[in-house]
């Protein structure tokens, strides 16, 4: 899932600026699961903004609303008339949500209340870890399920580098060396020989380095004319 983290309150205050009709818009999907931008968090942020406005003697109306998904027109359209009531919408969705609403309704002012962090999963309650960069050309079959592009700080495909020590990355003893894990895994599977192959340079054009990516699937398009 997409993991996010709420922006610091001070920054949100700056973003809200002098607007006085404010909606905090939560999203019911990924960011709800990672406890950053769901209904609960939207209500909490709205309450904090209200208290702050009161403290500053500022007249403001702050509401909270959460929709199923901010990244699909279908869900956004359903609440369009509500959204119209506000001068500013602080979206607690990932960056995709903010942009979906902006593109659909350019007259609305939708601002981010969240820092979109990464694609990952919860290792345990309260701990999330990144697992995929979305490089567009998956190599997990080569490493039997451990992503060096994401988990190695240098995205090495023929690792590990010389900084790997006692299973940890040179960056920090908190970070597992991805290549140590890969070596261990292939060794356990009796497949160490596979590491002898020199993996060629990656074609990064399938990743973000080829510009924003778009997938067109004629087979499922409605207007494909077939």
């Amino acid at each position, binding site marked *: 899932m997409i993991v996010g983290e709420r922006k610091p309150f001070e920054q949100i205050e700056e973003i809200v600026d002098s607007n006085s009709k404010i909606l905090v818009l939560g999203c019911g999907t990924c960011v709800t699961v990672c406890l950053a931008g769901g209904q609960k968090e939207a209500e909490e942020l709205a309450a904090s903004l209200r208290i702050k406005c009161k403290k500053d003697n500022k007249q403001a109306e702050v509401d909270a609303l959460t929709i199923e998904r901010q990244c699909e027109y279908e869900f956004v359209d359903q609440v369009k008339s509500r959204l119209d009531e506000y001068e500013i919408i602080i979206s607690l969705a990932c960056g995709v949500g903010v942009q979906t609403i902006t593109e659909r309704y350019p007259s609305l002012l939708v601002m981010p209340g969240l820092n979109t962090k990464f694609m990952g999963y919860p290792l345990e309650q309260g701990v999330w870890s990144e697992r995929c960069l979305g490089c567009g050309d998956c190599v997990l079959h080569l490493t039997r399920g451990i992503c060096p592009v994401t988990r190695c*700080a*240098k*995205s*090495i*495909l*023929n*690792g*590990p*580098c*010389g*900084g*790997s*020590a*006692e*299973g940890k990355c*040179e*960056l920090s003893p908190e970070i597992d*060396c991805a290549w*140590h894990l890969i*070596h*261990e895994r292939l060794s356990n599977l009796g497949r*160490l020989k596979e*590491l*002898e192959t*020199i*993996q*060629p*340079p*990656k074609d*990064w054009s399938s990743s973000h380095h080829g510009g924003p990516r778009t997938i067109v699937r004629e087979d499922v398009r409605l207007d494909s004319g077939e």
Partner: protein
Amino acid sequence: MIVGSNLEKVINSGNFAVTGELGPPKSADIETLKHHAEEMRHYVDAYNITDNQTAIVRTSSIACGAVLVQMGLEPIIQITVRDRNRVCIQSDVLGASALGIKNVLCLSGDHQQFGNEPGAKGVYDIDSMQLIKGLKDMRDDGVFMGGEELEAPVSYYLGAVENPFADPFEYRVDRLEKKVNAGVSFIQTQCIFDLERFKKWMELVRERGLHKKVAILGGVTPIKSLGAARYMKNNVSGITIPDEVIDRIKGAEKKKEEGLKIAIETIEQLKEIEGVAGAHVMAIAWEEKVPEIVERAGLYPRPNV
């Protein structure tokens, strides 16, 4: 003979090679670097010039290498994959060659978070293995990494680093072999303080006959003080210093002399290890001691090949 650099000739002649290391400054004033290069003249066969070492911005290794060439000395320019993509690296290597530089050392590079621009975007377009292979293909097959042909041949002597002290230990020899297959002619190792572990690694290297395919130069760093030893042990990624070495410095009355002695003894031991082709002396911030180390280790004068 590939390119006929002095380093290549010394190695091929079977003499025990000696390389030194120079770190460019955080300014464009390279007088000190030139001074150190001059001090080491006749004591080393070639000079490594670091590439923004520990990710700290410094004068470019190629620029300093070109100055050394002008001085009639032989640089080994380091190229990391941290700051440049394949377009830039290939272009820089061609440029280095045009400037008369004949030795190239391929590395991953310390992560940018260690340096003075921790917010920098790390490039890591290719890794050090792909760099070796790419530069070898450029030289031997006349093609760029992307497959297009070069307009004219280019040549250089290719090296890489290996760290026998990093983990997983068993994999370190596999990785060396991979680098040999990728196309390196010489290897410089991380500083050796744990000779026992190095010897164990060399045993594995010999078991596979890799010492016959690649010239291994053992890394040697003289320890200047107890503080320096502790700093390296705790802060420099990839370096291990056994407690005995720290204790030896601690217990010594003349700490600097003890540091030099350890370095000289290490070189003497390296000379005895089958398959070690030379020593790479990294006396960072203590460059003036290189001649003394080389001389006391019985490696002076350098062969004229």
